[in-house]
């Protein structure tokens, strides 16, 4: 039989290796690669203002952070309420390097990919360390341990002069092949950098999830007794999940710091940790595509609510204070609605659409 790699229907595999593929059909491959190509191409075609580009860049940073959160909370099922602090670890790693070597040190301006990678590794180490209680604690108790890390982090930054007591610590502009990335191109440039990190992380996560290093996460989530009987150390596996989360968070943090040209505590607060959780839930816990949809959806919602509250403010006047209450209110509402009606998140809509096309030309 001629091999058919275009349709999923009528497609039979003859080796196990064929089944390991990320893209089972050429259509899948074509869709994803064109999507990626489009993501790279559009800013070259449509001119965006710096302001809008910054919004998009922050969504992308959040995507990297949420990929990390999904490792620990989505795949391994361990609730982390301190994810922004891990992102902060990455940002402050880069900022501390700048503070100790001088802001314009060549490593920071030229070898910035290494700085991002290094911040990720520091994030992984701290993540693993903070995850140590997972050897013993479960569920709520573990969540509280992550919350205390968030608290300790905020306190440490706010009170130590080493960290400029939470005031912004500066980071330099970077150099690219074409020379220094100037103010006009800054957000444009970082768009491509962060997008590249996302694409690489996306493939890395897909790779991990089809090997023992990803399956073990799901195993401890679904049944850690059975995972133990299957020869996994449930405790180490959970610590490893935290380290993975810390790695992506650390990279996100370093990119955040470069993007905003500094690290300040307000971006890594408890509030931000909750936002990351909201993004992961709305996107779809334990899915890769959810890590893309979630941050975009929440950011979009945020902008809409901002407009809405400005409008409400003009009608009701400032006395009602409704405008300020509107934001947390809608935020909470959206999370609750998703948990009740679509706990699998936006990723599920994506899955349904895809499986419709997969079965084509059959209806079911």
């Amino acid at each position: 039989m001629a091999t058919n790699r275009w349709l999923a229907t009528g497609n039979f595999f003859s080796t196990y290796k064929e089944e390991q593929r990320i893209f089972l059909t050429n259509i899948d491959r074509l869709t994803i690669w064109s999507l990626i190509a489009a993501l790279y191409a559009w800013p070259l075609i449509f001119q965006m203002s710096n302001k809008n580009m910054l919004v998009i860049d922050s969504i992308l940073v959040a995507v990297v952070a949420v990929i990390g959160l999904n490792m620990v909370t989505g795949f391994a099922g361990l609730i982390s309420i301190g994810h922004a602090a891990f992102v902060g670890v990455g940002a402050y790693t880069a900022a501390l390097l700048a503070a100790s070597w001088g802001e314009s040190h060549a490593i920071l301006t030229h070898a910035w990919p290494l700085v991002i990678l290094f911040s990720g590794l520091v994030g992984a180490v701290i993540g693993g360390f903070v995850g140590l209680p997972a050897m013993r604690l479960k569920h709520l108790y573990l969540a509280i341990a992550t919350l205390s890390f968030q608290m300790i982090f905020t306190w440490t930054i706010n009170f130590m002069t080493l960290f400029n007591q939470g005031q912004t610590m500066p980071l330099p502009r970077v150099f690219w092949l074409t020379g220094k990335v100037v103010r006009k191109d800054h957000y444009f440039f970082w768009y491509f950098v962060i997008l590249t990190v996302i694409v690489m992380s996306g493939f890395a996560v897909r790779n991990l999830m089809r090997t023992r290093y990803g399956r073990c996460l799901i195993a401890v989530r679904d049944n850690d007794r059975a995972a133990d009987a299957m020869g996994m150390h449930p405790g180490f596996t959970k610590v490893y999940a935290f380290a993975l989360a810390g790695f992506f968070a650390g990279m996100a943090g370093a990119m955040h710091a470069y993007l905003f040209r500094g690290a300040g505590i307000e971006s890594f607060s408890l509030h931000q940790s909750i936002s990351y959780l909201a993004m992961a839930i709305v996107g779809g816990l334990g899915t890769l595509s959810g890590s893309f949809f979630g941050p975009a959806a929440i950011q979009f919602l945020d902008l809409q609510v901002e407009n809405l509250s400005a409008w409400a403010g003009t009608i009701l006047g400032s006395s009602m204070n409704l405008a300020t209450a509107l934001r947390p209110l809608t935020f909470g509402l959206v999370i609750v609605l998703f948990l009740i009606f679509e706990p699998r998140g936006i990723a599920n809509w994506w899955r349904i659409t895809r499986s419709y096309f997969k079965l084509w030309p059959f209806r079911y």
Partner: protein
Amino acid sequence: MKKLTVTDVTLTFGGLNALTNVNMDIQPGLITSVIGPNGAGKTSMLNCMSGFYHPTTGELKYGDTRLTASSPHEITSLGIARAFQNIELFSGMNVLDNLMLARHRMLDYSFLDAFFYTKKASRVEAENRDYVEGVIDFMELEAYRKSTVGNLSYGVQKRVEVARALTLGPELILLDEPMAGMNIEEKEDMVRFIMDIKQERNTTVILVEHDLGVVMDISDQIYVLDFGELIGHGTPEEIAKNERVIEAYIGEE
């Protein structure tokens, strides 16, 4: 193959003895059944053997290795696998993934191999998939390969439980009531599988089972527990004649 020995094991839960001074000698290559009324301590015994419980006093040994204080994953790596009485599968995953998870220890590639999905990772995964397919064949689960475990019937889930334990490639397998809740045909299949596990796969079997007909038919050795105490052991013929055992079983009814 090694012998599993249980010496004077006592297991206490807040004053209640689930097991009292139990001694067992599990001969390699045979089917050893553990029977007894509900709450006799059969599952507790298996839990001690697989590291989920640690005896209050006494000792367990596999060959020369002490198991008494080991945790489940350590015991698994010694070649002792366990199928649970209450199904403990990864219910959100399909059958294939459940079994691939059991190959965890045998998948010999590094984190970076996995991260970049190198040739090595791909090759090792495919080899182990081959092994898993062997077990799927053996347990006749071909039809359910890609089905989500949670959606399968109880009988099939029990079969997947046993398959997953087999996928670990054990020398000794502990089966806790693998036939409970099955209809006649499913039971007959399971009996056939257990016989084959012993004969074709050269695996020692410890079987906990309530169906005395099955136990008498297939066991080489039987241990009888009642209220945590060992009240008899021997071949099926000896057990059938053992007065204390008859008393315990008739007394129950």
